[in-house]
């Protein structure tokens, strides 16, 4: 590598040795640099020089252009978490019993049943996921009747028909369990509200999956009452007027006096029974305007933080700092792209992890640039310093990022909800920052250095004088 010394093209003038300042940075001297060496370069060399510099500018242009052109479009594809757009989150425990242990398939069936119910609610893009082996997290965005949502998700319309029932001392009707005729599970999921053509009564239509079953019941109980119970309460006790062979029927009762109540019951019946009972164990409720306020505040703060970091890097490392800044823009863009592509939900802690990731991406550049400064201090030429600095810094960067990645992976493994969101954002940040802060900025730095447009170490943040040791 030291053969570059002999070209004398980008070599710093020796003899500016000054005692190092406590911070390890060379103190500035009044001395000036002569960079006339390059003006005597051959024509072809000059050609290549400007070619490289143009390529360098093209990379910057491409990064900035792509980001400015498509990032707004990209932002629309990012799904935001509840804490950012408002909404409502429920965590259910699936309750198994010794005689009905929970199987992985059973848990999946619960998730499917909940999906069906949530879809009936008609809210936009619900998130329903199994957490651990026996918990289900449901996230609903936007505003709607939350009490209703909770009831529809967690409750089963427990419809049962009995052949006999008695009144207890307090006047409450109690079914005779031995005479169970049919349950909601025997019905097709097409119940709806209707009005009886003759009486004008609000009713809920029922259709049996097996018409034969209904025919048998109506035959057996012809001119006798049957008792229909909903969630343990007697709903109605109609007397069977005729044998019905098409499996169709309808129910009505004092609690079903309005079309709304009928629709409600029809929805619950259609959702079917849950394979296992659910217990609500945790809920979070974020007002939509609160979420929006958080998002706005965090975005502005994030933008301000990034701008400050840009300026800080420019002040510290000048041209190299600019390269780091461009790499940072690419980092942010790629992270958003990954989020959109992998359908990662961006939460507030995730947003914080992103901004923290900016710090870590910058760290990779700082490690490299400090290395380059070390090499310059050791008297190497700018070009060989850049090459050696990049090479030496890489191992440090890999080791330090790997340890942080491990922390992120453990968080993902053990965490839930918010912590998971944070961990995913952290891991994506680290991987992307390895691409941009190492690969991209290294390529740009080498292009810039090799073009030899500027030769003074000042452009790399090293002092005007180069310390020889």
């Amino acid at each position: 590598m030291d053969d570059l010394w002999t070209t004398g093209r980008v070599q710093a003038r020796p003899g500016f040795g000054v005692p190092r300042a406590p911070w390890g940075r060379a103190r500035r001297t009044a001395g000036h640099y002569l960079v006339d060496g390059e003006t005597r370069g051959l024509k072809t060399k000059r050609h290549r020089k400007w070619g490289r510099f143009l390529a360098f500018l093209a990379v910057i242009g491409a990064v900035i252009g792509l980001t400015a052109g498509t990032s707004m479009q990209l932002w629309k594809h990012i799904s935001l978490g509840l804490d950012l757009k408002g909404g409502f989150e429920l965590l259910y425990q699936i309750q198994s019993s010794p005689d009905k242990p929970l199987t992985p398939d059973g848990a999946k069936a619960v998730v499917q049943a909940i999906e069906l119910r949530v879809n009936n609610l008609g809210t936009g893009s619900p998130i329903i996921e199994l957490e651990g082996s026996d918990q289900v997290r449901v996230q609903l965005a936007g505003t709607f009747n939350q009490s209703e949502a909770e009831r529809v998700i967690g409750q089963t319309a427990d419809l049962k028909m009995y052949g006999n029932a008695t009144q207890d001392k307090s006047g409450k009707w109690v079914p005779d369990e031995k005479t169970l005729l049919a349950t909601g599970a025997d019905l097709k999921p097409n119940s709806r509200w209707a009005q009886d053509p003759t009486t004008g009564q609000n009713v809920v239509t029922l259709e049996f999956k097996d018409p034969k079953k209904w025919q048998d019941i109506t035959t057996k109980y012809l001119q006798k009452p049957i008792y229909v119970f909903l969630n343990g309460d007697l709903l109605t006790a109609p007397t069977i007027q005729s044998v019905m062979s098409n499996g169709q029927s309808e129910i009505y009762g004092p609690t079903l006096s309005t079309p709304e109540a009928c629709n409600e019951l029809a929805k619950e019946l259609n959702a079917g029974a849950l394979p296992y009972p659910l217990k609500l164990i945790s809920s979070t409720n974020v007002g939509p305007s609160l979420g929006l306020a958080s998002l706005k505040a965090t975005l502005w703060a994030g933008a301000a933080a990034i701008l400050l970091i840009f300026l800080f890097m420019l002040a510290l490392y000048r041209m190299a700092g600019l390269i780091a800044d461009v790499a940072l823009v690419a980092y942010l863009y790629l992270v958003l792209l990954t989020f959109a592509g992998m359908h990662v939900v961006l939460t507030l802690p995730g947003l914080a992890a992103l901004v923290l990731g900016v710090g870590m991406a910058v760290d990779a550049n700082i490690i490299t640039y400090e290395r380059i400064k070390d090499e310059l201090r050791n008297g190497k030429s700018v070009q060989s310093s850049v090459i050696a600095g990049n090479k030496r810094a890489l191992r440090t960067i890999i080791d330090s990022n790997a340890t942080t990645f491990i922390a992120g992976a453990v968080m993902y493994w053990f965490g839930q909800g918010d912590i998971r969101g944070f961990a995913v954002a952290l891991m994506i940040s680290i991987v992307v920052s390895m691409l941009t802060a190492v690969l991209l900025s290294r390529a740009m730095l080498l292009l810039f250095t090799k073009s030899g447009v500027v030769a003074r170490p000042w452009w790399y943040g090293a002092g005007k004088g180069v310390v020889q040791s």
Partner: protein
Amino acid sequence: MNARFNIVARRRWFFLLSGVITVLGLAAFLLFGFNLGADFRAGSRVQMQLNEPVDVQKVRDMFQQIGLSVPEGGITVAGTRSDMAVVRFPEVLTQDQIAKINQAEKQTFPKASGADVRTVNPIVAQQTSRKAVWSVLLASLFIVAYVSIRFEYRFAISGIVALLHDAFIVMSVFALLRLEVDLTFVAAILTIVGYSINDTIVIFDRIRENLRIAKPRSFSDLEHLVDKSLWQTMSRSINTVVTVLIAAVTLYFFGGQTIHNFNLALIVGLVSGAYSSIFIASPLWVAWRGRQMRRSAPEKHPA
């Protein structure tokens, strides 16, 4: 070089300083304990962004009106501009009650931007705290394994001491200031763990590299080598922590209220992390490594 402050030689002062801070932290811990948030304590937590200075009595009256009595000390004022009220209930609120709260908030505080209501039952609270402790311990374990393979076990242990020191300081500060500890606090602790070790590894990496170039034969050689490594990486250490601090401080003052405590934990942890990787981790390694060195070759090269 002469003017340079010798960190390694003064290590006892730094150990003493960190020891005193740790003892104070422990005292704060024992005296106050954690102010556990809704994620770790069963019950309900209502966070209202009022966008006006919080009048505790007015908030209490609002809840009284909808039939909810707030327990003594159940209302805390939070937010950079003291415009956020956090109300705790030992019981789990129902969805109807939450709907009522949202309505009442709109009427009583027209400027408010809504409420964030969390309810947790005891099983989840217990499960969450167990998971949190496990994830910190497991993360440390995996990091020790990685560093032991890439470096050596003494580096791993010194690094872990430094990171536990940082995690502990953040926890003490939260105990001392009675700040709420929730799930995002755990995320912050984990980030600090990751950052602290990241910071330490960069310095260890330089020590490892310098060890390859010059083989120190005496304890003073070793001290000198580590001190040199510390100063070689000093501008990186400072520049990096300043960058991350820029992000954390800006987010602390202007970011969303829900990550307010998260960012405070981060700021304390970052400062502590930068301090401990320079003044604790490396000197600790020197003391440990040096002790073995003196034992193996004491007469040839007196320290």
